[in-house]
């Protein structure tokens, strides 16, 4: 009878013993984190749509390390670092998630699909109703996206990495994914994971920031909803196609994002029901599901164990905090311009985490005054935030590669 070691039979266990201590500890920690994410997602503490598939992927990939040919250790899930075409063709036939990663994730297609879904679900009429105030708030809420860049450089990141982590301040997951894929491919896994983890926490964290920065009497200001004009579908379509063309003309690198978003808006406004139900159903949820799995699977200890991860964690939370403060500052500017008629709470909705921050603004207003309805203005600022985030993505992706 051949001599079969129990550790050869259970390779997940034997690779734990055969790895460096740091890798073993990281694998065990990531398995525990994956289980925790599934638990928190199932309890609705974190966003379940992303966290449940991500947690599953994370726990599973770190448990399933085995000995591959040549005695090296790896998994049969995915190989994100492969670049040689011949090797890639081989891996595509072995690693079961590699086709989805190669053909949808690493080229940013999945981010565009999600952006198309956001476009279909977006009511752009509120932006068109008050464009200047919405845009002013949105650009103020990009404070984190701008201010984090020099701080990241000061902490030792290069320009590409600094721009990628700064985009967390835009609070838009697909945008962070897109920027890091374009600028910092080596760090896109930890940056995107940091972004999605923190974005899940905005619903819990921003209400405290609002209470800290805005007194109760200002939080309860009632907005005049009679001033909101009716916007027709034709006006929305005209706005979408003109804005998309102009922005694509200015920033060709970010044109896939612009096209996806405004195409989603236009499909909805044109009333093409079959496209709408396809994009907001199978396409959006399918993309979100696979993105969650891929993000989890990419958290393999060997890939994610990077000395820069701690810096990214600090910079990510800093970017979101600064953007929240900037948004509220924008709300205050509108409060003073309107001579006290504008509720500064709406400022937080400039942070483009659609529709979470708009709901946070409405909740904060209602807690202070049950009759304070700010949601239409908050959604306007929210959608403007998506547009300004896409614009800043375009600027970073176009500008940073030109810098030495």
């Amino acid at each position, binding site marked *: 009878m051949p001599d079969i070691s129990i550790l050869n039979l259970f390779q997940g266990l034997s690779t734990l013993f055969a790895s460096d201590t740091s890798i073993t500890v990281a694998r065990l920690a990531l398995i525990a984190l994956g289980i925790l994410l599934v638990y928190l997602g199932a309890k609705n503490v974190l966003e379940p749509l992303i966290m449940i598939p991500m947690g599953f992927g994370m726990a599973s990939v770190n448990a399933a390390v085995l000995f591959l040919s040549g005695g090296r250790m790896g998994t049969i899930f995915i190989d994100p670092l492969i670049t040689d075409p011949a090797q890639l063709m081989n891996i595509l036939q072995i690693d079961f998630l590699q086709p989805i990663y190669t053909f949808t994730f690493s080229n940013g297609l999945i981010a565009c699909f999600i952006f198309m879904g956001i476009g279909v679900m977006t009511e752009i009429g509120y932006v068109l109703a008050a464009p200047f105030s919405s845009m*002013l708030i949105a650009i103020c809420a990009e404070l984190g*996206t*701008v201010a984090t860049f020099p701080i990241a450089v000061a902490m030792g990141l290069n*320009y590409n990495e600094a721009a990628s982590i700064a985009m967390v301040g835009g609070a838009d997951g697909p945008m962070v994914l897109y920027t890091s894929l374009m600028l910092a491919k080596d760090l896109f896994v930890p940056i995107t994971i940091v972004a999605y983890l923190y974005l899940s926490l905005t619903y819990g964290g921003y209400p405290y920031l609002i209470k800290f920065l805005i007194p109760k009497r200002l939080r309860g200001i009632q907005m005049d909803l009679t001033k909101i004009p009716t916007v027709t579908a034709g006006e929305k379509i005209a706005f979408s196609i003109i804005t998309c063309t102009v*922005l694509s003309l200015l920033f060709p690198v970010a044109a896939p994002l612009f096209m996806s978003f405004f195409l989603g808006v236009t499909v909805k406004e044109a009333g093409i029901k079959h496209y709408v139900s396809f994009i907001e159903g199978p396409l959006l949820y399918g993309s979100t599901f696979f993105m969650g799995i891929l993000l989890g699977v990419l958290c393999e200890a060997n890939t994610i164990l990077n000395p820069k991860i701690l810096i990214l964690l600090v910079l990510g939370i800093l970017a979101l905090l600064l953007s929240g403060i900037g948004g509220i500052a924008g709300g205050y500017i509108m409060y003073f311009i309107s001579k006290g008629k504008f509720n500064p709470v709406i400022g937080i909705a400039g942070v483009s985490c659609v529709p979470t921050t708009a709901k946070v603004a409405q909740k904060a207003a209602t807690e202070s005054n049950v009759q304070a309805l700010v949601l239409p203005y908050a959604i306007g600022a929210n959608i403007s935030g998506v547009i*300004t985030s896409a614009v800043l993505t375009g600027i970073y992706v176009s500008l940073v590669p030109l810098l030495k």
Partner: protein
Amino acid sequence: MNILEACYVAGSVFLIGMVISFVVAAMIKSIFTVIKFRNNSSAKQKGWKHSPLATNMPQAK
């Protein structure tokens, strides 16, 4: 790479972003204005053609 240059880059990104955001807002306003002007003028035209004055007006010979 230095921090001063990074601050300069960040400032430029913010300024360009602000200008483009306001250009987008101005575009929205102008689209509104053009569409409203068109609607108003076509409404006036329609109103004139269907007004009693127009229908009762004797045709030019």
